[in-house]
């Protein structure tokens, strides 16, 4: 079984979803348990994968390829595998999903559908992180879109329909661009290799574009266009300024669990795709557009932080903070250094835990105060001290407090950007300085938010609120524990990532 563990990872949530479909909708507790159990099995599998993963080996592990179908001369395979980039994200996905399933045990509305969609979403996300065939990748990418669309549209807030359609259209637009670009990438390579057959394999295409025939045959302008198109597609997902406007709406309206997954995992697919496909297949273009990516990264950091500063809705504040934090990912990868790339991947994982925790806290507080308006809150440390304590811890993690994971990613990204080769990134130091100054704004909006929500005189109307319930401790403690674990001993993560990063950077640099 362990040989095709990746296949099991994809299949297990689907099996869970199918099982839930057979259960009558009244048995809500059975459905909840089954969903939790399914996610727990996936989590265990991902940890087994983590343990089995060979840290020293470059390239794909747990590799599997099955012929799927042929369309003319196009060969589409079911090809999956994992390396140091995907293994941490797979673990992140199962962890965040399990905790969001636990976090949504309080949902009473259409329970059965909720968990079916969540488990389908889990399959889609895991599929994205293991797929090595572009067609398959696209399919899984799309598979995440529909469940999230429903999660927001059915279980969301007042403006849920607007938000869900905006989400669908925006990210669908990204998918469209991605799909077309994939075709172009494929066709260009296939034309060169003709009459030899060419598959949609990312591994094969990477080889063709870096060392093989397509490397020299495909022109610079074409490659540049393809890279920018890919970048745009993934930039919508990450999201990158100015493609970010779908995110705050989606988050504000989404139910807590969906927000946790959306910020915790779905955004990471943008970063992952950019590294796996964009940087993987066209490393020379990554170097060529490094300045553009770094500038956008810095804009994300500052712009997101400034917008977070003036938000009046706590959930919107957290949403804008996500935009700011994803800037670190761009900054890290744009540096084209081992440290920077390491920082980017760390940030994907770290922000996954921290944003999920933040959204959980906002949801937990909202369920009590019935408001997300910052000025309506205040004195929560008195009314709900445990929740307020975790909220503060999450805010500290988010502002990059050392000892928590966010600091390590920021540090690595900064080491990367300041050490970026001058021929690739001539303005590295200037950009780095602006980015580091951004962390002052980050501290400002988070601390100001804490001052206005958890601090301050106790409010009469919140006197009778119930503090954290036992079930709420599971996501709070769990997510915080992972954040602290990585922050205190980042070696456990860097050890897994490093070989892949060295390989990746050597291709871009060389």
């Amino acid at each position, binding site marked *: 079984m362990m040989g095709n563990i990746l296949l099991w990872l994809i299949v297990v949530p689907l099996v869970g979803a199918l099982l839930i479909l057979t259960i009558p909708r009244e048995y809500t507790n059975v459905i909840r348990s089954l969903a939790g159990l399914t996610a727990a099995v996936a989590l265990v599998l991902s940890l087994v994968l983590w343990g089995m993963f060979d840290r020293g080996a470059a390239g794909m592990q747990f590799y599997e390829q099955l012929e799927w179908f042929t369309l003319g001369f196009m060969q589409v395979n079911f090809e999956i595998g994992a390396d140091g980039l995907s293994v941490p994200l797979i673990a992140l996905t199962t962890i965040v999903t399990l905790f969001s399933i636990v976090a949504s045990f309080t949902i009473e509305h259409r329970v059965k559908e909720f968990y079916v969609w969540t488990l389908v979403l889990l399959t889609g996300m895991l599929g994205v992180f293991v797929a090595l065939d572009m067609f398959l990748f696209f399919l899984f990418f799309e598979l995440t879109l529909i469940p999230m669309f429903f999660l927001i549209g059915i279980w969301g807030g007042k403006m849920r329909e607007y938000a869900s359609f905006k989400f669908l259209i925006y990210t669908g*637009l990204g998918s469209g661009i991605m799909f077309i670009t994939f075709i172009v990438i494929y066709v260009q390579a296939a034309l060169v290799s003709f009459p030899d057959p060419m598959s949609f394999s990312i591994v094969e295409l990477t080889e063709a574009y870096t060392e093989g025939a397509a490397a020299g045959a495909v022109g610079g302008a074409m490659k540049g266009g393809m890279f920018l198109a890919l970048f745009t597609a993934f930039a919508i997902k990450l999201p990158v300024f100015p493609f970010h406007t779908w995110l705050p709406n989606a988050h504000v309206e989404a139910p807590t669990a969906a927000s946790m997954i959306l910020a915790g995992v779905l955004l990471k697919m943008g970063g992952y795709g950019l590294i796996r496909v964009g940087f993987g297949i066209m490393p020379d273009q990554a170097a060529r557009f490094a300045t553009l990516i770094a500038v956008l990264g810095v804009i994300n950091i500052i712009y997101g932080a400034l917008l977070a500063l003036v938000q009046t809705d706590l959930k919107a504040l957290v949403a804008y903070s996500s935009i700011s934090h994803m800037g670190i990912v761009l900054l890290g990868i744009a540096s084209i250094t081992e440290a920077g790339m390491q920082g980017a991947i760390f940030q994907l994982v770290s922000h996954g835990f921290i944003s999920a925790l933040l959204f959980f806290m906002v949801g937990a507080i909202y369920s009590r105060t019935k408001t997300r308006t910052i000025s309506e809150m205040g004195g929560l440390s008195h009314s709900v001290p445990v929740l307020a304590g975790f909220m503060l811890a999450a805010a500290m993690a988010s502002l990059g407090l050392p000892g928590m994971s966010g600091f390590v990613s920021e540090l690595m990204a900064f080491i990367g950007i300041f050490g970026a080769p001058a021929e690739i990134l001539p303005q590295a130091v200037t950009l780095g300085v602006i980015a580091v100054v951004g962390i002052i704004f980050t501290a400002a909006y988070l601390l100001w938010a804490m001052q206005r929500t958890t601090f301050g005189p106790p409010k009469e109307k919140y006197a009778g609120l119930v503090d954290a319930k036992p079930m709420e401790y599971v996501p709070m403690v769990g997510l915080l524990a992972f954040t602290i674990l990585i922050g205190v001993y980042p070696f456990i993560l860097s050890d897994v990532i490093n070989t892949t990063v060295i390989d990746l950077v050597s291709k871009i640099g060389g």
Partner: protein
Amino acid sequence: MQLAWLIPVFPLIAFLILLFFGRLLQEKSAYVGIAALALSFIYSVLALFERVGGETYTYVFEWMTFGETSLTMGYEVTALNAMMLIVVTVVSLLVHVFSREYMHEDHRIHVFYSYLGLFSFSMLGLVLAPNILQLFIFWELVGLCSFLLVGFWYFKPEAASAAKKAFLTTRIGDVGLLIGLVLLFNEVGSFAYADIYAAVENGMVEQPMVTAIALLVFLGAVGKSAQFPLHVWLPDAMEGPTPVSALIHAATMVAAGVYLVGVMYPVFLASETALTVVAYTGAITAFFAATMALVMTDIKRVLAYSTISQLGFMILALGTAGYVAGLFHLMTHAFFKALLFLGAGSVIVAVHHRQDISVMGGLWSKMKITSVTFLIGALAIAGIFPLAGFWSKEEILASALLNGNGFLFGLALVTAFMTAFYMFRLFFKTFTGDYRGAHDDEDEADGHGEDDHHGEPHENTGFMTMPLVVLAVLAVTAGFVNLPFIGYPLEGFLTAGLNLGDQPHGELWLAFLSLAVAAGGILLAWAMYYKGSISEDFFAAKAPAVHKLLLNKYYLDELYTAVFVKPTVAVGRFFWEMDKGIVDGMVNLIGRFTSTSGRTFGKTHNGQLQTYGVVSVLGGIVVIAIAFVLRGYFG
């Protein structure tokens, strides 16, 4: 010492115990903290003895890896940090004891002690760090603890605001430090002190890079040690409980900036420019903070400005090659300033939680131990022979005179005069004359019980007086570790094995001059606030504009709000409007989608899976359709 890692671990364990079981322990939480710090203190003494014996111990492990590079963490005992361990554990232990009484009415006393434990852990971790990155990690953690403790009474809006201000202002400095250490890492390839020293001494880091790095690192010190222009957070931090002010905002954390410059000293020595900046920052801060201390009427604020001023002295010393002088003063100041703050705490309890010295007075006869120990502290900080402050301040003056210039020396001298003056203004107004606080039913600032406000002030219990006595003894004797007559033992200890150049020493006349200046300050305060031969309002009447300027702290808070805070928020608001503009544009664009969506979801409310299937397929088709529409642009 191999077991040195236990020194920070004891308070960490105390923190964890109190985090999980604090609610059960309540007031007994104090003993958990006290026991932990007592153990840390014992181990620190052992570490010091072993270090004096010449032994050292370094341990590192792999913490993070990227490419071929490994970052390590660990601990080491050096001469400097052996001294710091003693300072931190002594003051922390005494503050733990003091707080047992000071905080006993607070039902969150267990939270207070858990934070104190976390702080002690972080501060000791900072000191034991063998590399600058680990220092930075703990540096931020002490900042967190400071934030938590300043904001301990979170329900007071001033406390909440002060906590935020403290964190944010120091973070501005931290940004400099972070950039500095990243640049340093990219030059040296390591964060370890030993590697950094070697690289700098071999000239591996060239000008102007080494100057840039030194200045950036110094920016961190400016924030943490509340130097001008980032000093504005420290007076506000007095909103925290007084024992916290003594431990964090006087004796230990704020001195971390001085320690940082000390531990990075070879980098500073490599840059003449950086040293000059350091020296002037210190001298100007010392002077400037002292001027504000002259007019404050809140007992803790006077001490806060005094702390800023004394930290300026230390920075001045370091900037003028007085390595030992700066760190020596760090040590003596920690003891006498902790003494003064705890004394102030004792006074505040006695006068029913008021802090305004204009409602104090006459406490000398009512609380003997507090009065006498406070007087010792005041004499020590004023620099009266043979108390601790005399020795260290004299060395700072020597260093400013010999390696600085007339301006720096002059500023330092004037500041020394002002120090003696404002301290004795404080002393006379608090302890002599008549008690002015009786029958005063206003001022309930702290939210303490009403029954608090009755009765004459009286001396506090042993939990509070014992630490005062111990610190008073240290305020008298701590200077003896670097006596000139026995060959400056501390200097020999701190400089052994390091290339820090000759340490400046003053001649005898300088000692007399410094004594005369201190005595002059005390005398003037005596004439104005005890004897009354000069009116208390003499200077305020002569120069009302200056007086107003000082009372308003040079309007710096207002300036910063106008120049930094408001424009930032305005820019944020502008961007937000812009963002919403784009969103509104989107609304029109997809308006028709939303109008149909209502119906779509209306149907799906039936919960029929078939409908879902259709909708998801439709969704997919929409996606593909858009893709086709746009194909012309991208293909």
